[in-house]
Every structure is written in C-alpha cells, then in structure tokens.
C-alpha cells in the first residue's frame, strides 16, 4: 500500500475563523478510511480543499506517485487527475436519464470539441451496463433521474463516481436518509470500491462507520485528534470529551 494523498500543515481561515488548522493527513491506495468529527470540525472544508473548491492559506497537498501538488489546480483538473467527490445531498442531473448521467461521467476526453465529436462506442455501452448492474439500476437506465428514489439517486451518484474511475473517492455522508436495507447495499458498494482505490467516507453515523470496518480519523477544530480503529478512537478520552462534552 503506497501513499496516494498527503496533506501536510494545511490551514485555511474564513474571516478569522480557522476552519482547518495545521492539518496533516495521508491515505494509501487501496484503502478505506472514515472521517468523523463533531459539527464544525472541518470535514466538509477538508473535502473542499482536496477537490480544489477552497484554496488553503498554507500547507502542501500532494497526490499520486509523481507527487503533483493539487494546490492551485482547478476543480475539473483535479477531478481528471483522479479525485472523485460525492456530495452530501445527492446531486445527479435530474432532467436527464440514468444512462445520460452515467455516460457523462465515463472516463473519456473532457474537452468541448472532443465531446462534440464524440461517438458512442460498444465499449462505452458495455461499461454503462456493467456500472448499472453494479449499482442495481439496470432496469432504470432509460428513466429520468429525477424520478428515482432518494437511495437510487445516491447509488446513481456513486455509479457516476465509479464511472470516472477515480483513484481517490471522497464520499460525504452517504448513509444520510437511507433505509437500513439501502445502507447495507451502500456499505457493500463502498467496501467493494475500496478494494482497488482509496475511499474516504465522511460520516456522522457511528453504526455505519462500524459497518465499514476500517481505519478512522477523528477531526476536531480543523486538525486530527485521533486516528486508528473505531474501537481504539472511541476509547480515547479526548474523543469522548469532544463528542460528549458539549
């Protein structure tokens, strides 16, 4: 397992409020990692920084074997480098069909002229079928995404992320608002995905984290408070203080 993403000494502040404070973090490939932390711990800002939405005030972020710096890269460039992101709220393109959603996400050249003169291929179609199979939406391919259930939208989004073939997958609260059966399926998908790539799951729900059965990082006030197995971190007095003390 080699290191895929490394953050060191990253800080960012909004109008004097330090959202991320001297954060250092690494993740290998393949690896499944859960990030937990109370509200305002900096979980979402962490994802914003990695995906290029927010520019850090200081620190280093390097990615891949060639140790390229992600700082200063545009969101789309970072995405093309192999970082996929799933938002808390399911964001699929509701006016378009499941197939169109997946086709858009398929790993292909992304320039406007390449897309304009793009021709459908057999391989692409096969890939879409396979992905649909994986996320359990084979029967829904021609349906408009807006008609899907909440859980199905979440899976479609995971499917779109997988279609991008990212090396690092950032997932924000995937289990929110799901039925137990849907959670079960989501867990399987994420664990499967993490067999070949790095997956970071930000989650509130301890039960869900327990199910993922992976290394856990606890964020607090913008930096790492504890790291290790879930049992290990939940016995850490500082973590207990942070979670129960307020």
């Amino acid at each position, binding site marked *: 397992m080699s290191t895929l993403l490394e953050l060191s000494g990253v800080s960012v502040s909004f109008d004097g409020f330090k*959202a991320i404070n001297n954060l250092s973090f690494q993740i290998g490939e393949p690896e499944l990692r859960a990030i937990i932390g109370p509200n305002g711990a900096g979980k979402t800002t962490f994802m914003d920084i990695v995906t290029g939405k927010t520019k850090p005030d200081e620190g280093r972020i390097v990615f891949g074997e060639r140790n390229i710096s992600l700082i200063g890269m545009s969101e789309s460039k970072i995405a093309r480098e192999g970082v996929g992101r799933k938002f808390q709220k399911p964001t699929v393109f509701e006016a378009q069909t499941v197939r169109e959603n997946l086709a858009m996400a398929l790993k292909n050249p992304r320039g406007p002229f390449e897309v304009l003169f793009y021709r459908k291929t057999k391989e692409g179609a096969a890939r879409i079928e396979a992905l649909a199979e994986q996320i359990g939406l084979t029967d829904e391919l021609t349906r408009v995404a807006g008609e899907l259930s909440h859980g199905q939208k979440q899976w479609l989004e995971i499917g779109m992320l997988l279609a991008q073939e990212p090396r690092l997958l950032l997932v924000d609260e995937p289990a929110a608002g799901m039925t137990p059966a849907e959670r079960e399926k989501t867990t399987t998908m994420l664990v499967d995905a993490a067999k070949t790539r790095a997956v970071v799951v930000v989650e509130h729900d301890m039960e869900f984290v327990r199910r993922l059965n992976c290394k856990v990082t606890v964020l607090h006030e913008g930096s790492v408070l504890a790291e290790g197995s879930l049992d290990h971190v939940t016995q850490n007095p500082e973590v207990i203080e942070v979670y129960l003390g307020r």
Partner: protein
Amino acid sequence: MLRLLTLVIALAWLPFAVSAQELQTLLQSHRDVIIKPSRKTVGPTLDALVASGLPTVRGFLEAWQEKNVYLHAEDDLFYTGSEDDSGDLTLLDVDTGAEAATGVGRKDAQQIKPNGGVRREIGSALVAFQLSDPDIARRTQALDALARALDASQLAPLIASIDSETDARLKTRKQKLANYLQARFGESPAIRVAAINNLADDLSVDGRAVLSQILAVKMLVAQELPDGTNVASVLAPGEGDLERDTAYQMLVDDHGLPALVLASDIRRALETHVEGGISGGVPVAKLDNQAERIRAYDTLVAAGKVPARVSEAAIDAAFADWGFYNVYLESDPTITEAAETAQASVKTRVSLSQTADIGLDAISLASIYFLAAIGLAVTFGVMGVINMAHGEFIMMGAYTGYIVQQIVPDYTLSLIIALPLAFAVTFGAGVAMERLVIRWLYNRPLETLLATFGISIALQQLAKNIFGTQARPLTSPGWLDGAWIINDVIQISYIRIAIFVLALTFLCLLLLILKRTRLGLEVRAVTQNPRMAASMGINPEKIKMLTFGLGSGIAGIAGVAIGLYAKVTSEMGADYIVQSFMTVVVGGVGNVWGTLAGASMIGGFQKGVEWLNPSNTLAAQTYMILFIILFIQFRPKGIVALKGRAAGD
C-alpha cells in the same frame, strides 16, 4: 490710448475755461457732436466734458442720456428741458439751473435724441459721477457698468471714490476693480507690476481676463525682428499649432512669395489646358493618378503656361529666411513677465480648485447613485432578488412628487408631504409586487429578473399613457435654488447638497434600522440563514415582504430627490437602473457600506473620465462600464465581499 490723450489735452485746457457760462461754452465748442452724436464720435466730447470737472456736467449728461436736452431756436443755446402739462417745454439753463424760458413750443426747440449706442457711452461717462452717489444701488450699478468694459478713463474717478466708500463690500469690489485698472492702465510699469502681482491669487473670471488681455499676442512674420518687440514665443512651422501650409500661406499673403500649387490647382490647370484629349503632353485618360498629373503639370510649367510648383525645399528655404513670432501687444517685457508669472500661479490655483470641484461633483453624483441603488441593494442582498422594476419605483416616487405639487402649491410644504407619501406609495407597490409575483419565484432569480422586467415595461408604458411623453417639472422650493459658492471655480448647487444630505440620512437610517432594531436583526437573520431564522420564530415571509417594501419605499424617495434636479419622465427610471445594478454589483451584495463604496467608485470614476475628456459624457459612461466589467473580473463579489461558506456560492 486716444482717449487718454484727449484727457491730457482737456486737462491742459481746463484752467482757461472759467467764465460763468463755462458749460454752455464748452458745449458750444462741441456743438456738432452733441446735436448729431454717433457712438464713434461722441467719445472725445464726453472726455472733454468729464475732464472739465464742472459740477454741472453730471446733470447735463443725465439729461442728455434721457433725451431732455434741447437746442433753443431763439438763442441757439443748449438747455435742459421738461414738458409741462400742455405739452410745451420749460427750459433750464445748463450752468445755473435757473428757468430760462417757459411755455416754449415744441417747434421752437430742437430735442437732442442720442441713439442707444450713444446713450450707453454717456452712461459709462456718468459712471465716474455715480461711483460716489449716495444711493448704494446706483453705486453698484456704476460698478457693474465699469466692470463690463474696463477703461483707462475710469481709473482716476474710481480710486478717488474708494476712500469715501462706506459699504465694506462695495469698497473691496472697488479696490479689486481699481487693481484691474491699475494692472492694465497704471501710470508706471512699477504700479502695473505691483497690481499684476496682486492678481496672482485671483481666480475670478474677470481677474483672469485682465491677465489674458495684458498677455494678448498677435502673430508677426518678419525676416528681422523690429526693435522693441516683446516676443512671447518663436513658432516653428510644422510644429505645435502652426501648420506648414498655414505658415507658408502667410508668407504668400503678406510678403508676396509664390503661391502653393495644390492638388486641386493642378487638376484645374490640367482641365483648362486640355487640347485634343491631351493635357500637358499626357492623354487625359491616363491622368487618373497624382504622379502622372504632376508630370503633365510640369510640362505645362516648362511651356510657361502655368506657375511653377513650389517645392518642399523652397518652402523650407522660405521658413529658414523668415521668422514666425507671437508678439505681445504690450511692449514692456517686465509687465508681460509679471503677468506670465501671475497667470501661471492662477492656473495652478484654478486647476487645484477644479480638482476640488470635480471632487464635489463626484460626491454629488455618488449620492444620487447611492440613493438610486440602496433600495435595490437591500432587496438584492436580503432576498437575492433582482428587481428590474426598481427604476419604475423611482419614477413612481417622482410622479407622486409631481402630483402633490399640482395640489399643494407651496413648494416647501409639498416637498414635506411628497417625501413620506412617495415612500408610502412605492412601499405599497413594492409589497403588492412581492405578494403577487416575486413570492412565487423565490430561488429562481433569473425568472424573477424577467418577471420584474415585464412589470417594468408595463409600468413605464402606463406612466406614459397617464402623464404623456413630455417631461413634467418637479420644482424645488426657493431656498434650494442657487449654489454654494466657495470661490470662483468651486461651486455646488444647494439641490445637490440636499441630495447629499438625503443620501447621508438614508445611510445612517438604514444602518440604524439594520443594526439597532428588531426588524434589522430579523432581516439579517433571514439573509444569513432563512431556515434557521424560521425555526427561531421569525416569519421569513413577513420579513421579506417588509424588506421589499422598504427597498421600494427608498426608491420612491430617491425618485423625488432625482426629480428635483432632473426632469420627471416615464423613462427616468430606466436611465438609472443599469447604473444602480452596477453600483450594487461593484459594491458587493448585501451590505450598505458596499453600496456606498460602489456608488463612490462609480461616481468618482465617471467624473474623473469626464474631467479628462470634458466634451464627451458618452465616452465617460462607455469607459465607466468597461471599467466595471474589468473590475468584476478581479473582484467578482464586489468591493465589500462576504467570504467563506457564508458567501454560499
């Protein structure tokens, strides 16, 4: 100059004129001029009369001016006269003022009727007497007349009248005018230089005119400069303002050098010398380019049919031979030097003052933009809604003011009624619009923009249908007329000051409402997080409605203010709407200070460009918009931007 000479002669002659019939004698010696005066010839006569120093001259001049002087046929003497009830004349002796004859028939006396030009000349001669008149109005009048046309002859009487002047304001004015006269007509160069130096800090148009009159130049072309010429500058043809052709033409006109042969001359010459389809040895069809034409023309020259072309070399030689000079009309260099120094100093001061004046203009423009935009900023900031009908609310406010003035004739009172009424009317319109239209379109900002645009078209046309297309006046009360004059360059009209004060008041009022009242707290809560605010018992619907009403109400008041200094038309709102958007966008949304900064920047920039290119306000606006487009590139969120997650992008 001539008058001065006459004055001297008259003064020399003075001691000999001492008989009892002094004035009559004097008049008789100028008899022809007095009977048939013309503006051109009357001058020496007037000078002689004034110079005589006789106490009776003034009365005579006044009578002459008012056509009350008669030549009595019986004795051929001049009398002042008046008509009695029967239409006959009563004649008075010009020297003693005693009644000389009564009941003189109109036929027996010839009335002297000077024309308007002559009467004005008489008037300026009278100035000297009126300067010391006990009536202050007449003294002021006299000074006005004097200032209109500065004349050497007035210097002495003016100086003489200063000491006895009782009114302080008039006294300074007299001193100032005396200084102008000294600068131009003073006896010795020393006096003149001293007077000129006094002008160095005089920014008034009159003072500047005095300096430029002293520094008046004329152009002189000469091979050798005559002695005693006071050269202002040496001109080089082809450089600066003097073009080569113009310069050479001067040599042609004044000194008989061979005339230039222009392209049009060549064409005409060739046309007149066409013989059998050939001109100058070249077939006509080939003469469609300049080179051929010149060749043909030169052939004609060789044949002696036309004058030779003047070559560039010849022109250069002529320029080397002749000098072009700007020469001062004033021959004394010490005086022109002093005047140049004074003028430079005045120019510096004037440009400083102009900068200050532009600054004031910019502030008042910024106030107007602020007033027009602040309502928009409130609605845009709090609700994320662009109200394209905002301009029409401004128009509604202005028309409200106009209607109130139709009912309440007292302008001050009507203004006091109009301001709150305009607020109420537009507040109501805003609330109605929010309830009926905007409420249904929240979270669809682009559609709100279009729907409010539909309202804007309808309201504008409605106003046109009701009030017609011509502009309606919104008259400001008398106490707002006029301007605050700081010096001769810096002045600012009271209306603009009032608008500035109004803008300032609104700034404070809005800050007060937003920062110190319950409403303000709730508004800010809804702005930052509507869901959280709702869960805390704030009714966001009500807050949005009130906010929209407030924003619209301010637009109404802005309308009254704008209507006072511009005309009220159905299109007035449209004139301000784009600028208002710019102000809000440049300033940064959702912040009163941002709008202030935006308004200041746009107002300042526009005035700045106008200053650089004063003739072209259209260009100023074009550049301002280009500037804004570029500005947005660097600060997409405006000057005062919210940062971080609160910005919610």
